[in-house]
């Protein structure tokens, strides 16, 4: 009896643990490409994202939208939806977090935003200008959803582009799926006692740019 009871309790504890930890799970998948925009003087002015949604969410998002051609949507027809998207994204800080030499940087409201619909999936394009352009030795940009409702993955080909960056700048991308030790370690070092340390961190895409 004693063993059985103990086993039961252990099972209960294990399940509770598992359930507590697994409570976040994605419902939306985004394949992202990001461009870091540089000014002529070598300072970073902002980020330009292109986020491609999964086909299930894309179908959901265009549900009920008017279009001239069935199953095809023009940029104009998707205008109101793009507007809604960027407005809603504000609440989540655009899932984009920047640090210049360890200091947190803030973004302005998005500009130049639009949606396009191709091969039954939606892609949201938008530019996030930095509140104050910075010229750091190291810039860290992270793209992730802390609640993990959205699973962000950087595109396989050309995930990050440096546009107009000064010569000698080195870019490094740490993907969450790599399981690479460096991403884990850096995350812990940078965020263990910072404000961003939480569950979603494990799924962060981390772009690091070192400039001389």
């Amino acid at each position: 009896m004693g063993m059985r009871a103990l086993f039961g309790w252990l099972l209960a504890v294990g399940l509770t643990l598992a359930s507590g930890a697994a409570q976040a799970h994605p419902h939306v998948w985004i394949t992202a490409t990001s461009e870091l925009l540089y000014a002529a003087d070598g300072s970073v002015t902002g980020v330009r994202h292109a986020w491609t949604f999964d086909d299930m969410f894309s179908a959901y998002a265009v549900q009920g939208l008017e279009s001239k051609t069935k199953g095809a949507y023009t940029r104009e027809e998707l205008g109101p939806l793009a507007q809604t998207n960027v407005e809603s994204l504000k609440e989540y800080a655009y899932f984009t977090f920047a640090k210049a030499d360890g200091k947190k940087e803030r973004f302005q409201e998005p500009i130049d935003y639009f949606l396009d619909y191709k091969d039954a999936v939606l892609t949201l394009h938008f530019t996030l200008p930095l509140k104050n352009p910075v010229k750091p030795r190291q810039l860290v940009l992270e793209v992730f959803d802390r609640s993990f409702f959205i699973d962000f993955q950087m595109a396989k080909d050309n995930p990050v582009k440096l546009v107009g960056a000064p010569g000698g700048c080195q870019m490094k991308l740490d993907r969450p799926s790599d399981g690479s030790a460096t991403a884990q370690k850096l995350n812990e070092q940078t965020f263990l006692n910072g404000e961003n340390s939480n569950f979603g961190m494990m799924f962060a895409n981390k772009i690091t740019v070192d400039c001389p």
Partner: protein
Amino acid sequence: MKQHLSPLARGLIACATVVLVAIVADAALHDLLAQNPFGAPRPTQAAEPEASGIVGWLLAKQSEFYRQMSSTIRAAKSDGSAVWTLLFISFAYGIFHAAGPGHGKAVIASYLVANRETARRGIALSFASALMQSLVAILIVGISAWVLNATAKTMCRAEGAVEIASYALIAAFGLRLVWVKGGAFIRALQTTQPVPAIAGVPHVHHHHEIHDHHDHDHHHHDHHGHDHAHAHHHHGHDHVHDEHCGHSHGPTPSELAGPGGWRRGFAAILTVGIRPCSGAILVLVFALAQGLFWAGIAATFLMGLGTAITVAAIAVVAVSAKDIAARFSAGRDGGGALFMRGIEFGAAGVVLLFGVGLLFGYIAAERTTCF
């Protein structure tokens, strides 16, 4: 089976209970902190990487099944046999997906513990609430998208409204449980003298209550057959019941147990089942867009079935753990009852905590994201 346990065994059980309660509380607190927009520093991060093994696997499995759904629905347009694959994937997804307070699993488990429910009822509640969840998802998409051809924005708002209502229901439900269980706990605290289990305190409701429990017991014997362990088990359980009822004043939920208890069970089903799963909504809309709405409906029901199995398993574990604790504590009259009332009160508190946390956005495990 022994009714009297060594202090060591009882100590072990007490420790296990504390651990269990601490874990549940920790999970809730974890969310409270994690969702704090101003980000309170979290000193205890050590446990996270260890958990990522199981979590990672669960998430990977779930994502795998979910992402196969859209391609399978597409395939079903030209190849009818793909529907069977879709049904299997949906079922598997449901099993893996049912892991989160948003799906009411924690609420059901806590409710069962707080209310001294049987495992049988726990299973029934799990299935009924999962069925309702499926129906709500189908109704939302069926009415707004199919009939009214509403946009995602409108649909998401409807979803959001239902979500808020469901959180409010959980909180209200938890408040009621805390009220009832808090009263029982305080009464147990006030009983300084151990009361003989059979005698009880003379009370107007006394005979009525005892009678009720006999009915209750017979009912179980009928369904459980004559398994020895079960007979003993219910005996131990009864012990506690009688003791409690000796002090009971208001109509406690246990008085409603038995066949007529569905009125009460319905509150739990409604509380948990009114909140549809975002995944089901997405699958339904996608299926509708592909012109295969019926396949989406079938997938939603299979998802619900998978969810029900996981939730039922957890419900059974919760009830069994509670019963084990009840059996052990039954050996000691006064303290045992106090111990059990304490657990029930704690479980009621967890329901309230989840409800309030979800309602005020501290816990955002299954948040509807409209964008």
